[in-house]
């Protein structure tokens, strides 16, 4: 079976994927205004300062919204539908796209507390995904 696409780290995203490999969610942070950004920005989107520094984020967030995908638009997802794609509001103020794992699609609830985990997807790449915080009743 074809596997899901695996991201290929490049120069710009290197610190992000180095971080996930070490179990840390690295995001760009602006020392000038303390703002965070995602996915990768050239300058701080809040105060327009440059350059931005990579810094470990808490990995804590809440589910902003989600959808359940039923279409297969890539052969790697042939056996994966229906699957969730989520927007997660992180404590740092950025909204990440990701998947929530370990929660049945029918139990996803906007506002639920989530925390990051790192999924080893092969090719020495780990990808951040999110799971319900222990004790959270979906």
């Amino acid at each position, binding site marked *: 079976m074809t596997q899901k696409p695996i*991201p290929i780290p*490049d120069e710009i995203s290197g610190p992000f994927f180095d971080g996930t490999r070490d179990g840390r969610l690295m995001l760009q942070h602006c020392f000038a205004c303390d703002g965070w950004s995602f996915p990768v920005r050239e300058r701080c989107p809040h105060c327009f300062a440059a350059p931005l520094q990579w810094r470990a984020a808490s990995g804590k967030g809440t589910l902003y*919204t989600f959808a359940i*995908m039923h279409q297969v*638009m890539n052969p790697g997802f042939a056996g994966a539908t229906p699957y969730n*794609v989520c927007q997660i509001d992180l404590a740092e103020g950025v909204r990440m796209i990701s*998947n929530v794992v370990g929660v049945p699609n029918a139990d996803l609830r906007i506002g639920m507390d989530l925390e990051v985990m790192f999924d080893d997807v092969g090719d020495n790449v780990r*990808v951040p995904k999110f799971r319900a915080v222990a004790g959270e009743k979906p």
Partner: protein
Amino acid sequence: MIKGSIVGLGVTPMGKIYGRRSVDFAAEAIALALEDAGLQKSDVDGLLINANIPQDMDPRTQMMLGFENLTLINVMNGYGSTAGAMMQYACMAIREGLANTVVLVYADAPLTPSRGAGASYSGPHRFPLGGMAGLKAHYGDFGANLGYAMAAQRHMHLYGTTEDHLGAIAVGQRKWAQMSPWAQMKAPMTMEDHHNSRWIAEPLRLFDCCLVSNGAVAVVVTSAERAQDLKQTPVNVLGYATCSPGDHLRTDRHPAVETGAKRSGEMAFQMAGITRDDIGTCQLYDCYTYTVLVTLEDYGFCEKGEGGPFVADGKLGPGGSLPTNTGGGQLSGYYMWAFTPLSEAVVQARGQGGARQVPKNDYVLVSGNGGILNFHSTMILSRHAS
């Protein structure tokens, strides 16, 4: 004040018409628009092209179609909002004396016999794997369907919007499509049919999603003075504005439920000197049913969050109090980005809608929307001078 006048409209056959390139459809639409206006190709001195996804409509279109000595030419791209920005550029250039007769065109030909509409529209070139973009591919975040599904889900959570609300929009537009000679989808649709259509990206079903079309639409724009001498009743542009709310990947921003329609609508209404109550028909960008609902809210036809109950009584459909997307829109008519609402607005403002003509057509509101609700345009059109 009249910003400019639309004097010609050309709409090609739409849908599963195979074996023709975008530029071929463009040529046909432009020829139809010039004939409609009573103008010759040699009268044209401006050509504005709406970029499309395959990027096969470029400035060389001028040479491919044989236009000479153009003093205005460009390819413009604000995705589905572009038509509004093209109209601004055309009208401003005409008033500055930079051009006199400007053709605006959108053309696309993504459909092939061997592929479904979704696959045709988002081929493998849209799944880059390098860097952060590769994350999206791994998560399965492909195409616009998911982005709009997530936006609709957020609206449902905040305001209790339901599948019946979205369905009311789809059902109403299908009724309109049955009266339009240009529409692709003519089969009757009930609310039950809507609810039984397959999931695409929950909470959006197949009948919440736009079509994919091969075809082209062109309009001809000139000055109000010159428009008086041409074949058709001029459709005057009285107001236009764009607003792009920007990044949705910040927790302090909510373009999924608060769109650029608000600011761009306010600006366009102020420019035209009219109010919402003057609008007889809306032609709203409808890549999805949800887009219509949230656009109506942001234009102020109802309070924020009340779009669902507002549309539930069928007021957007034939016989309703706010006839909207009267050619079937992009859900049931044809998918030509904002040239779909623009083309139907011209028909309605002229009074040429035949069976689907609305009685109150003095002022027509047109919207465009691109990205995942990232870009927005508004136009107000009328056969009146003010």
